[in-house]
């Protein structure tokens, strides 16, 4: 098992940023009571995954992956393609989530989770 040293942590600072974003997104999801804010948290959480894929795809000194005799090293295009798809999925999810929040607001008159549960209990 490789040991974790401080230098290796700094060398992989990009992963630290990814993990930080991931955890903040999850925290907002768990701690928030406002439904729109929760969706923001969900978005941040998903965005961190985009970073997780994109970063290792970049090769230092590599160019865009278009074959040209002047270059020998290229960045890996596959993660970019995958994440383009994931971004589309993320946008669709966010749009649907926000549409649901609008409908919830129309039906309940609030988007605070606590108040909504209270209104359903009164019923």
């Amino acid at each position, binding site marked *: 098992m490789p040991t974790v040293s401080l230098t290796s942590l700094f060398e992989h600072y990009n992963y630290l940023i990814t993990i930080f974003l991931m955890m903040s997104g*999850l925290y907002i999801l768990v701690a928030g009571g406002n439904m729109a804010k929760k969706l923001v948290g*969900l978005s941040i959480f998903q965005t961190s995954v985009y970073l997780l894929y994109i970063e290792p795809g970049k090769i230092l000194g590599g160019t865009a992956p278009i074959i040209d005799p002047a270059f020998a090293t290229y960045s890996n295009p596959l993660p970019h393609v995958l994440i383009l798809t994931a971004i589309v*999925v993320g946008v669709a*999810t966010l749009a*649907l989530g926000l549409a649901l929040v609008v409908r919830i607001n129309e039906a309940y008159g609030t988007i605070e989770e606590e108040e*909504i549960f209270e209104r359903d209990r009164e019923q």
Partner: protein
Amino acid sequence: MKAVWPHLPILQVIIPLFGALLAGFLRRSGVAFALALAVSWIVAANAFALMWQVLSGGPISYHMGGWEPPVGIEYRVDILNGFVLVLVSVVGAVTMPFARRSVAFEIEDDRGAWFYCMYLLCLTGLLGIVITGDAFNAFVFLEISSLSTYVMIALGPDRRALLSSYQYLIMGTIGATFYVIGIGLIYLSTGTLNMADMASRLGTAWTVDARVVIAALAFITVGISLKLALFPLHAWLPNAYTYAPSFATAFLSATATKVAIYLLIRYYYSVFGAAIDFASLPITEIIIALSIAAMFIASFIAVFEKDLKRMLAYSSVAQIGYITLGIGLANQAGLTGGLVHLVNHALMKATLFLAAGAIFYRAQTVQLKDLAGIGRKMPVTMAAFTIAGFGLIGTPGTAGFISKWYLAVGALDKGLWLLVFLIVGSSLIAVAYVGRVLEIAWMREPGPAAASASDPQLSMLLPLVILACAVVYFGFDTEWTAGIAGKAAQYLLAGLR
């Protein structure tokens, strides 16, 4: 016909996808229904043809656009996913006639076409997850089916449907994102997204750095477990199933969770299991423990529910526990039992939720207190409910008995005597919650809500009767369920390292 024959794997997904597009343009509820019905039947025929190809000629590998895997996306059909494809599409085809009146009753007419559009999109996603051999492609299909599911749930008649849909969206997206994180970690350590290719490269990745592989396994397990509602990640399921339109509940309970279970089996047995030695990780113990918890706790909650659909939803969580128990046992009889229960539970739950839908259509309520004597007014509906209910308990002569028998044998083969008693014990709790409904429905005098009810039209009764007959039939003739499941289990266990 000859030109189409080799392209069945892609047609399985493309036909419902274009059907969904067309249904969205049609706008007229009746026309969209006719389209959805036609598509469901074509898709089922296609699935049978694929299964026939697999049984006669072995696994099929379809290369998308002619690109060889692992570069291109591969659709791969073997005996396991052929089996699940048939299950999903047949459930869709059989239950579809029920949808017309039920959807027209529960959803405003101008939204009817959208409902069928979403149904077909969901079918596309589910079939896609099952057929694809590419891990990222599976994620895209997972999201296609999930997003359309959220919309279907939100179309439910009660305002709480919106809330349940939102909660499911949050949980479902977390699950799907966990899955992508897991795939990303595997991609980082193996450089491939093709499942078969992953299986061959993970072994090396495991020896280089086992922690990455364990983290990936953990993320994928939790992500898929959220989608399949493995206890204690089932919190989204009861509300979603309770407030969704009746037809959507019946369809989803029979297919959506089952497809997620398939994906878990695929990863455990064909990807991770083929590459690393599972005995060194405590996975089977965790799965078995959670399954037992689901079997008991969820069943116990079901006993005290006042709403018929919610009770059935909790029962679903419990029954999923039996299926995952089979996965955890990981021996021939146990895995066969899990796979058979995948099919049998789909048939039984579809019957039960369709019956609940028929009751809602006629009596406008599914609260148990209002259902006194409903059996005397809706005898055919409740007879189907009763048969499927006996199936849930695992009475001999129904399909449910076959699955529990195999599970018990699997537990004995592993030397887990206690587990056999636990399987029987949890079935006794099922006796309590099913029996409570049967007592209310058959023994009591009809109340005000039940008084004016009667059996619904033939288009709603026929799916119910067919499914109830299937529950009995597969309790006697097990060649097409346990027979094929046995072969699939053998195939999966042979791939294990």
